[in-house]
């Protein structure tokens, strides 16, 4: 598989965005959703990847750099370059930052479960980072701003109650290829936009290797499947392999639970999230 050509290849036209318009909508979104519930500040986990660097940039513009706290939470096997990329974003934006290495608590836990595989370790790390963000949000009096993009949400390529947890998410309706466009336009360092996307559980890990396909390709597929509601036959006519079609459709379906509240056993006639339906922005 070739390296992700986030900027060098032309964008699939239906996923091309007007970055200036999207930037405006998302900056206002952060301002509005943070401030109307009585907050002025935001906190986010900054990995040094393109998604969190983009969100840090948008949050900094929306709330002002002094109202943004970026928490850098490396594990001992994280790539050192990730940390230096994150610090570059911090410096460029002038936002607050805090480094909390998660190695002690992760290692302490897995000493009891030395056979745990990478998946368990990765999920545990994501949830550890979540608890740190929520704890810091209380100290900093801030809302946790999420960084999961639409590709990840649809594929379930994230940890439920880990990196998928947040109070507000400005980039959850942007595919990865759109994140790249916006990040480049708002001034995220080119090296960050162009580097191979990685969950960074160990140095050299690659999302695209792990997923088994390139973001560019799956974004095109998801666009036709989700946004345009193409049938399997129509997707096949576009040239997608039947095995790929089945695999992605199954992934989207199998990960639906991550995108919803836990299932509540229904007993009364007015159940939370069934008949008890209020907007999240109730009163604001």
């Amino acid at each position: 598989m070739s390296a992700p050509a986030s900027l060098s290849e032309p964008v699939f036209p239906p996923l091309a965005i007007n970055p200036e318009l999207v930037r405006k909508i998302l900056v206002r979104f952060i301002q509005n959703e943070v401030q109307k519930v009585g907050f002025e500040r935001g906190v986010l986990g900054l990995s040094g990847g393109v998604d969190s660097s983009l969100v840090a940039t948008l949050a900094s513009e929306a709330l002002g750099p002094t109202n943004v706290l970026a928490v850098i939470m490396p594990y001992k096997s994280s790539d050192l370059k990730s940390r230096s990329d994150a610090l570059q974003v911090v410096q460029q934006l002038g936002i607050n930052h805090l480094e909390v290495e998660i190695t002690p608590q992760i290692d302490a836990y897995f000493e009891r479960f030395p056979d745990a595989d990478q998946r368990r370790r990765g999920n545990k790390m994501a949830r550890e980072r979540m608890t740190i963000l929520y704890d810091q949000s209380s100290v900093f009096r801030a809302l946790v701003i999420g960084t999961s993009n639409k590709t990840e949400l649809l594929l379930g390529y994230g940890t439920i109650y880990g990196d998928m947890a947040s109070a507000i998410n400005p980039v959850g309706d942007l595919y990865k290829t759109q994140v790249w466009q916006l990040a480049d336009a708002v001034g995220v360092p080119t090296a960050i936009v162009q580097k191979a996307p990685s969950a960074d559980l160990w140095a050299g890990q690659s999302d695209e290797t792990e997923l088994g396909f390139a973001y560019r390709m799956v974004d095109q597929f998801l666009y036709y499947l989700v946004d345009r509601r193409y049938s399997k036959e129509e997707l096949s006519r576009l040239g997608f392999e039947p095995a790929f079609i089945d695999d992605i459709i199954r992934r989207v379906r199998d990960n639906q639970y991550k995108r919803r509240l836990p299932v509540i056993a229904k007993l009364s006639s007015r159940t939370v999230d069934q008949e008890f339906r209020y907007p999240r922005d109730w009163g604001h």
Partner: protein
Amino acid sequence: MSADGQLTVGLAQVDSALGDLDRNLARHREWVARAVAAGVKLLVFPELSLTGYFLRDLVVDSAIKLDGPAMKDLLSLSGDLDVVLGAVIEEPDHRYFNASLYLSRGELVHVHRKVYLPTYGMFDEQRYLASGDRFRSFKTSYGRAGMLVCEDIWHLSSAYILSLEGVDMIICPSASPGRGLSTDERLGTAESYNLVCRTYAQFLTTFFLYCNRVGYEDGANFWGGSMAIAPNGDIIAQEEDADEALVLATLDLGDVRRERLANPLLRDERVELTINELRRAWHERTRKPF
């Protein structure tokens, strides 16, 4: 209206607090004061300006009764200018409507209950609201007017019916969430509304006042874009951005007559033919499946 037939209208492109009537009423007072100071004679607020849009179960808590105490507050807004605002109204039989109210000189001149309640995609209005059953025009100090609320204008017949009543202006309060990304400078929704509103103005040779709200509710952005359109389809004034704004436009009310002389579309409209053909089409449609 001044002696020379000019009318200054204001489109209050505002945000609303979801389900907070007191705060929204106070905000209406502020915008009315601003509009009065700017010489506005007709001020239009967006759809459900008194309550916010994605109310869900808040519909019940946010409703007012037309003969209830809240009406006094609303009527008092219209002492110095005519006001169009949006509210949920509860009827005596406990049906709830998404309504637009036209107020003038402390009186309720007209109520339009939204007919077409979008219940698809991100919308769920029919779950919570009853739908209106008529499109009627009414007389104002500035000519004959009709109101259509947001989704109403996505049905050609609504504006057509008002046009046959001889309206000089169609007022469309809206709470349209923006969506549809492309490389364009505007969202797809904004492009569509511009096309629809200008088309109606030009085809029906009438002024068209479109007031859309701004702000966010549960992640949805309202894109603003409020505009006043002349009977020839030209945009007189527009706030393209999604900021709160008082969009001011001076309408030359004589434009309706002049446009209808130049383009006598309304005169030439074959209403009886239309009715007959609709009746035939409906008759056939109900007897054989398409």
